[in-house]
């Protein structure tokens, strides 16, 4: 029952928000948002305490992979809502009901994706996340955001369509195989009896489809536009939670393929996508002048690392599970801080925002810290995960992968450092006056930063265990 509630509750709240005339205009029902978010988080926490049985005939279940994504989403959502409180003091969206309604719808859809064990249901949830976020990208209602929305919609929809085709291929692979159709545990259980040719085709199409939503190069093209034009807190949710859901889709099918013993077929593809994404990210991060687009490409980079770890197998799978968490939190952190910069200076470009240590000390500090966190410097969590993935590359006997990875990480660091430090340090433009940073706007990112820092030196027991089990499910192992 709880799983169903987790998926349905936000939507139930969303319905009145969207229809009741009380919420017409710019007023945002923050209280409802907060209530729904906290309830959701509470329910998710209860799942950790008391693992639930599968529901809807096994269509909904909470396995380690799903729990990781679900928790990540829920936490990020709560943080985003707290941030919203401060955000709404400076800016009001055109339509408060669309804002709140879509956020809640997104939470529902993401929960469905995280808990779905029926791949068609997973697909439905995935498409729903795309659609629920689109209006949020278009929140500013100007030409640029319109263009971004259009590209985001078309590319993601095409990608997701390909994923649907892949799902059907998977169904064909299951022809005449015992077990409920397209239900994950049964697929895994009888993986070796699946038709290998269809399974391969299914894997590739699902990879491209969900890869498009993750933003793997070369299907990443919508990402900088969408992240750059959406309000920062929405970008944060997309980069932190939405990509997590998309990665979950890839991970699910990988789970099946690994179980079917087709690892030697799947892993090179994953590694290839990983390296290409790293390279593309590096190319676009050099000389980038807009922090939000920079973070978008950094997200491309980290998606690449995720599939790279998955493809390397061994401890790499563990690494990319850990990286999923770390990257999600770090991206949320960075986008929310960037949001503060945009609120204060009206822009996220190096041209307009300079010398923030003077005008926005707290945000600037968080931004610079974030630079080191995102680039995988010790002692932040991303260091742990990236180091694990690097080790996986060497253990798996691909030293050249390690070399390329390190080279790209180095180039990316130069690009990011140049921009972030460029806007954090220096003499602020004369016009800019110091802004008082409301605690609502700083608390969220600070909390995320603290968590990322903690994960670098201490991984709580339950999380550790869940990560390990997820890694094993993906054909890997815990270090």
């Amino acid at each position, binding site marked *: 029952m709880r799983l169903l509630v987790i998926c349905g509750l936000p939507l139930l709240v969303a319905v009145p928000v969207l229809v009741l005339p009380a919420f017409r205009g710019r007023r945002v029902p923050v209280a409802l948002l907060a209530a729904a978010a906290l309830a959701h988080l509470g329910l998710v926490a209860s799942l950790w305490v008391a693992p639930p049985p599968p529901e809807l005939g096994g269509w909904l279940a909470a396995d380690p992979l799903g729990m990781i994504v679900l928790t990540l989403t829920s936490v990020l959502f709560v943080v985003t809502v707290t941030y919203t409180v401060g955000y709404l003091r400076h800016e009001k969206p055109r339509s408060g009901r669309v804002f709140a309604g879509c956020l809640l719808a997104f939470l529902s859809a993401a929960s469905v994706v995280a808990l779905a064990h*029926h791949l*068609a*249901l997973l*697909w*439905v949830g995935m*498409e*729903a996340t*795309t*659609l629920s976020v*689109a*209006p949020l990208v*278009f929140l500013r*209602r100007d*030409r*640029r955001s*319109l*263009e*971004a*929305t*259009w*590209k985001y*919609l*078309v590319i993601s*929809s*095409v990608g997701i*369509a390909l994923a*649907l*085709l892949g799902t*059907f291929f998977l*169904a*064909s692979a*299951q*022809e005449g195989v015992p077990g409920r*159709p*397209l239900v994950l545990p049964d697929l895994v259980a009888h993986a070796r009896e699946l*038709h290998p*040719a*269809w399974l391969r085709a299914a894997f590739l199409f699902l990879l491209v489809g969900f890869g498009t939503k993750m933003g793997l190069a070369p299907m990443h093209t919508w990402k*900088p*536009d969408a992240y*750059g*034009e959406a309000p920062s807190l929405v970008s944060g949710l997309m980069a932190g939670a939405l990509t997590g859901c998309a990665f979950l889709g890839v991970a699910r099918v990988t789970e099946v393929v690994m179980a079917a013993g087709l690892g030697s077929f799947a892993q090179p593809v994953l590694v290839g996508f990983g390296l290409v994404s790293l390279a593309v990210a590096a190319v*676009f991060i050099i000389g*980038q002048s807009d922090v939000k*687009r920079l973070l978008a490409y950094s997200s491309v980079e980290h998606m690449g690392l995720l599939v790279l770890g998955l493809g390397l197998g061994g401890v790499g799978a563990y690494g990319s599970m850990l990286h999923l968490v770390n990257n999600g939190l770090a991206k949320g952190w960075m986008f929310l801080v960037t949001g503060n910069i945009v609120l204060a200076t009206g822009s996220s470009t190096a041209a307009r925002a300079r010398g923030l240590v003077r005008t926005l000390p707290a945000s600037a500090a968080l931004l610079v810290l974030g630079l080191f966190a995102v680039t995988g410097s010790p002692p932040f969590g991303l260091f742990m995960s990236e180091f694990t993935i690097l080790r996986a590359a060497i253990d798996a006997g691909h030293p050249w992968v390690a070399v390329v990875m390190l080279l790209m990480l180095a180039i990316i660091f130069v690009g990011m450092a140049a921009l972030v430090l460029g806007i954090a340090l220096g003499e602020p433009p004369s016009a800019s006056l110091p802004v008082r940073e409301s605690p609502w706007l700083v608390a969220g990112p600070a909390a995320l930063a603290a968590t990322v820092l903690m994960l670098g030196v201490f991984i709580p027991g339950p999380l550790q265990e869940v990560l390990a089990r997820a890694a094993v499910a993906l054909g890997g192992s815990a270090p």
Partner: protein
Amino acid sequence: MRNAAQLVLLLVVLSDLAILGTTRLSSCIRGVAAQGLLLGLLPVLVAPQVSVHAVALGMGTVLVKAIVLPWFLARAIREAAVRREIEPMVGFIASQLLGALALALAFAIAARLPLPALQQPLLVPASLATVMIGFIVLTTRRKAITQVVGYLILENGIYLFGLTQTESVPFLMELGVLLDVFVGVFVMGIVVFHINREFDSLDSTRLRELTD
């Protein structure tokens, strides 16, 4: 039964080619509507025996793909007061040739696919061809509205492939998929409205402000 299905599938492929060939947006949309209608018939025809499941699915398909969405798109072009797709990025002849190529490719691939037994031999090639042609329309046309049409065709193709799985993909899922397609195209339509308002044209190639 079987031959009827064959015929319908053939018509579907023809509608694809027709859409590729036409210059007029209105006929383009009419073509999609027709295709939707044909798709609505198919579940009943391909199913081993007529079942509530198949009929309901067919009716849902007709409702969404043959009536609501086409009407919606037609309204969109009325708003925009544009009649024809002027100079697509690839000429009409060329795109028809591309379509033919896609068709050939589709049959070639389908011939090599280990197809499930007792299926319509035409079903898979038709669906693959439709997918590819949808993709061609998406990539070679300028008007945002035509791109929506292209997406719709792509979806239709996938839907066709889904028909090989009617029994393994449960009814709810089918409807869910249908709903998603509906909402998806609906949202796209809304965006198209806004594009039309902002740029007073449906030419999506003018949305090139965001670059690196």
